[in-house]
């Protein structure tokens, strides 16, 4: 065993798993939710400025309680190419009532949604041609004292990746 580990070490170790991106329309499902991204486009948000907006189907299947978009967003790794810019903290609006603020997903309700990630400073919408969404596996952590909980990504995990070409806004 020790010899095998040493040999593995000498030959550079195991390659990091990086699954090939799937096409639009592929469902990415972890134990909490499933998201199926369909298309992406640049858009402008009154508060956040330039954003990349993704049309997706989402459903919360692994919780009997509503879950915040902050928690959902924290379990995704979303990057813009070229440049490999990581973007975080998405907003979500349901396509059937986009003017309504939706900060939490309700359990067991399939929805079509527009999910928006703000562009990083210095990145213009014209520069971005692809958005890559990776969904991590997630786990529920209880806060100290047991009064609350949140969902957090499992480090190094991935349930799948989807690449979307960014169309015209």
């Amino acid at each position, binding site marked *: 065993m020790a010899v095998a580990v040493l040999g593995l070490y000498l030959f550079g170790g195991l390659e990091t798993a990086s699954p090939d991106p799937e096409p639009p329309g592929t469902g990415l499902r972890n134990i909490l939710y499933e998201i199926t991204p369909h298309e992406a486009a640049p858009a402008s948000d009154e508060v956040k400025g330039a954003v990349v907006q993704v049309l997706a189907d989402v459903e919360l299947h692994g919780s009997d309680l509503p879950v915040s978009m902050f928690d959902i967003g924290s379990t995704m790794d979303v990057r813009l190419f070229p440049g490999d810019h990581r973007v975080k903290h998405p907003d979500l609006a349901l396509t059937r009532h986009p003017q309504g603020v939706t900060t*939490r997903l309700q359990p067991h309700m399939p929805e079509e949604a527009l999910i928006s990630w703000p562009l990083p400073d210095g990145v213009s919408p014209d520069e971005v041609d692809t958005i890559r969404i990776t969904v991590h596996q997630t786990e529920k952590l209880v806060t100290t004292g047991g009064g609350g909980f949140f969902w957090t990504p499992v480090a190094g995990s991935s349930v799948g990746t989807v690449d979307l070409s960014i169309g015209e806004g």
Partner: protein
Amino acid sequence: MPSQSRSGVGRRVLNFVLCVGLISAVLFVQRFIVAQDALVEPVATAGAQGSVVSSRAFEAEVTRVDVTAEIEVTSSVIGDAEKVPANGVWVVVWARVTALEDTVHGVSAELRMADGVVYDERGWFWASLDRGTFSPAIPQRGAFVFEVPADRLDGPALVLTHRPGFEDRLSSQVEIDLGEVDSEPGPEAVILTGPEIDMGGNGTGEAADASE
């Protein structure tokens, strides 16, 4: 010697019985230890639709429950009246809420099903009662609005929690059992009217826009 031996055996038996008794008592008392999270959970009062359910900070009475496929929102602050279809059904819970001690700025509303699934107040409509500010001893009548998959609407209870500063530890909470609610939506859209002050309880008192 035999009598001393007998008394020694007796003491050992007595010690054994006492030990077993003490261990049993310790195990029994363990049952009364309150879990860490339960120590600070909201202080809840339970009741049923049609009765006034009181907590320290406020009291509430559910007067009617409507199930509908469409809700009509009138006098929206951001636009004209519109009908909003549900993804499932709208459950509109009409209630009368009164702050008891201090002014209550909004109560968090949830609809908890018999199987434990919880839905938040939808939060989209300015006329909803969860946006209300409740002054002490001035009852307001209005509706909490929930959106629920029809097949999930089973044995719902309205759970209202006073969360000052989003802090719900030891907060006031009422749980009102809504009984059997038919998940088949009514034929008409339910018109969501804004909160009204309801001092008389007969619905004929002068109405006022409580959001102002």
